[in-house]
């Protein structure tokens, strides 16, 4: 069960996922700056070590430098979080969510068609 992480920690995870599931500390700092987040060095270190403690990252040394490797892929994380979300709000049923998406027009008809076809294919496969 993956522990909940804060927004800022999620930010860092996204950066690492974008870098191919592993990144050097320096690269992370660079990416943060590019995304407009000018966090202090110690802040980033603290957040990264929290992620390590929670089992989402693994840290290793390459020479002098620290490398952070994601232990959970982005899709795995998304699905896990989705499940939590569903459990919390929709009693675990995806149907309710989809209904909301459609009703609130969060899901456009084109996207809905897309999803439907995707789903048909999946069902045939199994």
């Amino acid at each position, binding site marked *: 069960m993956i522990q909940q992480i*804060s*927004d*800022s*920690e999620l930010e860092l995870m996204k950066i690492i996922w974008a870098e191919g599931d592993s990144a050097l500390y320096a690269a992370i700092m660079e990416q943060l700056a590019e995304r407009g*987040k000018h*966090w*202090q*060095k*110690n*802040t980033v*270190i*603290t*957040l990264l070590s*929290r992620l390590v403690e929670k089992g989402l990252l693994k840290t290793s040394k390459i020479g002098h430098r620290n490398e952070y490797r994601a232990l959970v892929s982005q899709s795995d994380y998304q699905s896990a979080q989705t499940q939590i979300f569903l459990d919390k709000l929709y009693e675990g049923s995806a149907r309710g969510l989809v209904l909301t998406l459609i009703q609130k027009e969060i899901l456009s008809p084109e996207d809905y068609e897309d999803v439907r076809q995707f789903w048909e294919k999946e069902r045939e496969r199994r």
Partner: protein
Amino acid sequence: MNTVKTILSLSFSGSLLILILLLTKPLFRHRVSRQWQYYIWLVAVARLTLPVSPRISLVGTLFQNMEQTVQEILFSSPAGSLDLLSQSGDDGAENRTILLSDNRFLQDNTAQQDSPRPQKADSPVSVTVPDRHNRSEVGSVILFLWLGTAAALLMRKITLYQSFVRFVRAGKKEISDPELLDRLAQTEEVSGVRQPAELWVNPLVSSPLLLGFFRPCIVLPSVHLPEEQLEYTIRHELTHYKRKDMFYKWLVQLTICLHWFNPLVWLMGRRIDQDCDLACDEAVISSLDAKGRQAYGDTLFHAVKAGGDYRNPLVSVTLGKDSKQLKERLGAIMGYKKPSRSASAVSLIFTVFLILGAHAAGAYADTGSQELTTNRLLLLGPAERMPKTNGHDRSSGQMPAGDNSVGSVRWASEKNSLFKTGRLSPAEENYEDGFLYTRQGYYEPPYLFEIGWNLWEESGNSYDCTDLSLSSGYHLPVYFTETCKSDLQDGKIRSSLTGILTGLWEETKDTEYPLIRPLVISIQNTGSIEPAVLAEQFYANSSLPQFQAVFALLDNHDQKRFLEKIYDDRNISFFSRVINKLDEDSPLLASFSEKSYSDGQINFFSVLAGRMTEDRIKSWLERAIKDGKVRFQLMLTSALSDDSEADEPFAPKEDAGAEHRLDGGKAKVKK
């Protein structure tokens, strides 16, 4: 027992220091830096935990005197003293006990009597006084109790700490707001802290606190503080981390555990906690202006109000423990002044004095064992037999195998037991079990020799050997230790040594224990130093063989003076050696007999009784009967019956130089 005494003396010394500090600090509370006031306690902590002391110190002598008084009480207590005497044997006459390396001793069981026996003339005996069985038992019990309580207390503190930390961690929420974390990072930089600290919130803690020895974790009851206050809070905690206050606090806790019986130490602990925060405050506000200081004070004030109830005073370093101390702290903040030069100088001087005082106060040092180590070996008359026990082996240990250090001699036994049971038949040639060697000092100014003989054959292999030809023409192989090697090249020394050995050889050649396999243990050139001065020195160093050698050369007045000193110091081993070297008709024998009799010092008296004639003993016995001194009666009676052992098959020979044997058995002389 000695450890217990050391601990008590450390506690006592430390208490003196604590009292001094507690009484004097309030006087200059506002004038001296708070940091100094916090760290000066380390002197007291060191005094309480480090068993270092100059040889002669205030508390050391105090405790040594106490020990002597206790010893005297034990010695002269009528009830049970017989028991003690017969068990232990730490009186001069009971020199038939042999000191094993592990401080146990063996008792002569072949003697029918249970009371100490007097010495026969002229046996070179030195006796060491091992701790009494009883005393060491009591001591062990006390030691165990003390240690057990200390350990239990420490365990409890540790478990309390651990559960506190667990609780705080369980209920914590990490602060993930990058803004706050950034501010933390900036404060870290300002405070000079390199390791990034964690920042958590747990509404249940009573005040902001710092957790962790190596990885600092700051826990706040709430984040909803004005920016400035948050900053000061964090600074305070980071300062605690920087100064490693956690380690200091735990050191103090350990000291408290060790001295759990001393309320002053507990008091000191509380005071140190307070001084800790005060010193931390001072460190933070030293870089602030007046306004900043006021804001800092506000922070403290509000922090005490906020927060939950969960706290553990000894565990974490907090912003403020309770409101009581708040007043003192606020006062200190508002009254803060930059420390003046004179104040620093004064505190430095005071520190130096305190350290010197702590050193001088000292603690109880184990001096008794010095004698033991110099006379670690078997100290009996020349080549005494080992006592035999009828039945069981008293000792389960062996002497350590001979090594090259002076004085360690290999015991003869092949099996693991040191004795043979039963009596030796006259035909038995194997007298190897239990040969001991004597060790004495011989002084021919300016050379002072320490010589032993009857060295065990195997040990001979670990020493170098030289041949000396005695004046009678007989060639004697003489062993010597490393240290004597170079000296023996000197012709004068060799001739001195030859002279001494010749004399010894003459003396002992017709006895049961002739001079064979002598070992020269040490050679000293005393130059032109007066014997009296040498005697003083050797006495102070507990160098018994050397002292004994020099004593013979003293004039009557000095001999009397030294004897009195030895007697007053209750130094039984020196006493018996010296007494046995006095002339038969020395008036000192009589005067000390009187003295020890009236002082009830039975062990000293029995040494003297060894030099008395039968008639003298008889008259003392009558006197003891008249005075109702039972122990003396018993001792004297046994002394008499020793003399009348002539009818026994294993009677001692009455030649000059023959020694009173342990088992009264004949020994073969191997030529």
